[in-house]
């Protein structure tokens, strides 16, 4: 066996006093050999990012301190290095890429300069040699037209291209170790598939050891040689990918893997006979850009969208970012005014109604947003958030509170918690509160815009179950917006696939997943990470 590039031994990182636990990570040990991809998997708060930052020597000073252990890079203990020595190692011998390509690049610096900066810090190359090296590495991460792209700014690139720039900057000096902290989480599936392919290819070509942080078992199945599972700062299990995924020994690992939604949709009772509650006809949303002197540009965010949802039905709207799915959701909730077309709620067109005429229809459509951390007003108690709507529509306060208590119970929270504030709840609990808030209006239509994307897998499953439960219980028509095919497969009766503002495919979930018709849908399915892997079907021991 070859000597590991990275050998973490008994790493313990202390949290500041008064945190919810003593150590951020405790007695963590694992190794990465050259050319190996090791995935560290865990939910938020498991300590996986802290581990990565400890290796980089980038823990926030005075807040997180290494209390014990060794971090050996090619046998050399990084914890004994001075800050100056660590600066020579970072960027040269360890490269790192981050989750958000949108924010991880300096917006006011040309991307070529951001790659060249690494060379500038660690080498004494001439201006011309530097530029050539940058062009070479840009070509090696398959960026089109490096000669042109070297001089653009980050905002002129797509998310995938930016992540390629990040990878280029991390790899330009051929580091022995690459740390990737959730590098594909913020990307579309298709882009994610390309980036994963690129990372596999680069590892092969350069024999780099890769420490890959992720929460996504699909990605693990796709890319990892070995897996390290973390929970509450401890390693609960590690081993070869196939072993861990098929024969997990630890109960927590099992729970995590079981929580990964399957790509094969379960059988669902047909609602084809139920009356149509929501219908859009030729819905158009066109954004106009350009000003005083410029030529006008038009973006068709939604183009001739026709869809209908029946009572008690969950319609999934699937697509990548920029496909127009959120635009459609916002039109239906009338948070924006569509440019053209009709939105029929039980036959009444609300597409162009003015504020006053719209008011009685407002309560009929309620929306749950993606990020429960930002969709609740931090200065208002949960009770206020839930009762505000009904009280606005004339319910007396006492009745509204009684109703809020019932709803809290319904979404699985303590009714006595109404006086508390959003920050006192976890992400999953907040999303439950958002659902309760939507239900308080007694709506006929629930629009759920990526309601579980910001949540951990285990929490995700529970919230999905809750949404499906309220659909049944209140016979709601649900419009479920998601980019995640696995999620869509589990909860939707029918699926609409959107691409560049248009509906490209529509059908029952079972039919679409069994035999996608449109080329785009097929491509979308092909890029789902871990699609060939059946999660949660463990081998018998």
């Amino acid at each position, binding site marked *: 066996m070859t000597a590991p590039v990275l050998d973490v031994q008994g790493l313990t990182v202390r949290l500041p006093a008064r945190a919810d636990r003593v150590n951020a990570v405790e007695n963590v040990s694992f190794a990465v050999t050259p050319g190996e991809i090791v995935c560290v998997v865990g939910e938020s708060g498991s300590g996986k990012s802290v581990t990565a930052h400890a290796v980089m020597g980038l823990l926030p000073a005075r807040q997180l301190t290494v209390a014990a252990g060794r971090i050996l890079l090619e046998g050399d203990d990084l914890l004994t290095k001075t800050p100056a020595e660590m600066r020579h190692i970072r960027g040269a011998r360890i490269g790192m890429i981050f989750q958000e390509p949108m924010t991880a690049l300096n917006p*006011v610096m040309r991307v070529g300069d951001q790659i060249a900066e690494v060379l500038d810090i660690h080498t004494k190359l001439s201006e011309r040699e530097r530029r050539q090296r940058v062009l070479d590495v840009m070509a090696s991460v398959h960026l089109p037209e490096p000669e042109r792209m070297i001089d653009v700014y980050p905002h002129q690139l797509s998310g995938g291209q930016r992540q390629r720039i990040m990878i280029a900057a991390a790899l330009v000096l051929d580091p022995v170790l690459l740390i990737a902290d959730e590098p594909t989480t913020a990307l579309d599936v298709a882009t994610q598939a390309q980036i994963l392919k690129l990372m596999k290819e680069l590892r092969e070509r350069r024999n780099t050891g890769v420490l890959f942080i992720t929460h996504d078992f699909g990605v693990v199945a796709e890319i990892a040689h070995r897996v390290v599972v973390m929970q509450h700062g401890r390693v609960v299990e590690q081993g070869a990918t196939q072993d861990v995924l098929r024969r997990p020994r630890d109960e927590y690992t099992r729970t995590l893997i079981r929580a990964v939604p399957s790509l094969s949709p379960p059988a669902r009772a047909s609602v084809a006979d139920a009356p149509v509650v929501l219908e859009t006809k030729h819905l158009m949303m066109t954004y106009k850009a350009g000003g005083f002197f410029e030529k006008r540009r038009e973006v068709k965010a939604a183009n001739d969208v026709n869809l209908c949802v029946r009572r008690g039905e969950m319609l999934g709207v699937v697509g990548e970012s920029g496909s127009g799915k959120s635009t459609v959701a916002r039109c239906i909730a009338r948070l924006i005014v569509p440019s053209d077309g009709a939105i029929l709620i039980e036959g009444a067109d609300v597409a162009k109604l003015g504020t006053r005429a719209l008011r009685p229809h407002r309560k009929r459509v309620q929306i749950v947003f993606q990020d429960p951390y930002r969709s609740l007003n931090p200065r208002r108690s949960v009770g206020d958030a839930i009762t505000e709507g009904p009280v606005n529509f004339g319910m007396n306060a006492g009745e509204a509170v009684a109703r809020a208590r019932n709803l809290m119970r319904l979404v699985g929270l303590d009714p006595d918690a109404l006086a508390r504030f959003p920050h006192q709840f976890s992400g999953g609990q907040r999303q439950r509160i958002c659902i309760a808030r939507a239900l308080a209006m007694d709506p006929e239509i629930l629009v759920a815009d990526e309601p579980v994307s910001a949540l951990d897998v285990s929490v995700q499953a529970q919230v999905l179950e809750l949404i499906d439960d309220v659909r049944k219980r209140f016979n709601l028509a649900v419009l479920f917006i998601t980019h995640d095919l696995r999620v869509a497969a589990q909860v939707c009766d029918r699926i609409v696939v959107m691409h560049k503002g248009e509906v490209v495919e529509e059908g029952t979930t079972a039919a679409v997943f069994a035999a996608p018709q449109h080329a785009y849908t097929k491509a979308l399915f092909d890029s789902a990470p871990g699609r060939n892997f059946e999660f949660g079907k463990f081998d018998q021991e």
Partner: protein
Amino acid sequence: MLTFILKRALSTIPVMGVVALTVFLLLRLSPGDPASVIAGDYATAEQIAKIRTQLGLDQPIFIQFAHWLGDLMRGDLGVSIFSNLPVTTLIGQRIEPTLMLALTTIVFSVVVAVPLGVLAAWKAHTWVDRAVMVFAVVGFSVPVFVMGYFLIYGFALGLHWFPVQGYRSPFSEPGQFVSHITLPTLALSAIYIALIARITRASVLEVLEEDYIRTARAKGQAEIKVLLRHALGNAAVPIVTVIGLGVAFLIGGVVVTESVFNIPGLGRLVVDAILKRDYPIIQGLILFFSFLYIALNLVIDIAYTVLDPRIRY
């Protein structure tokens, strides 16, 4: 980029037009007859009529505006009622000390305040940070004239390091210029140093939380370069905004400072003109300062696009 600057410059023309019209109407629409106001309390009817004809006030208002605008285009701002000298000449005589004082103040403020602000942000919540911020609060709180007299008392009367008052041109006597301009610059700078240092600190502190700062550190970049290259570059837009606002407000401060240090600049011209109700001068100065502000805004807008490639108008 060049077309952008050209477009942006062209779009200031309507603004300048509105300013010109407002300034014109200001005098015409003010209550009372300007001619009789100018003539004073003891003037005869003939004298008033003469002034009226002299100012063209007996003609229809549109014709008056056309004449006035025509004069303006040729750079003619009219003639002072009291000194009978053209307003442009008067402004020309007084402009140098004011511009010099404004320039030294802004340069000195930026040179001192931006590094102080960056330092405070870098050492946030330590004694360094607190010392800078205490200094900033003091700078805010002490009025310009108090600061001015305080400096004169200490450094001119007490230590005899600098002259008490007056002004020398940098073009004829550079050495004397420096010694004369130092105390006024210090007095006027205090508040701008305080303002710019605070904004720089807040702005850099916010940027230091950004992901790309972490990226820069992950590349092995030295802390000083992380601060100057990545943090300050991204924090620049709000800082430049405040510097621009500072220059705009500077005019008020200059008037006071010129009085305290007896500098023959525009500030004194303004005060004298207002006290004597010399309308053409007041009008000319308002126009002059308005156009200065418009030009300044143009410069700031262009600076934005240079500092942040995402900003395009």
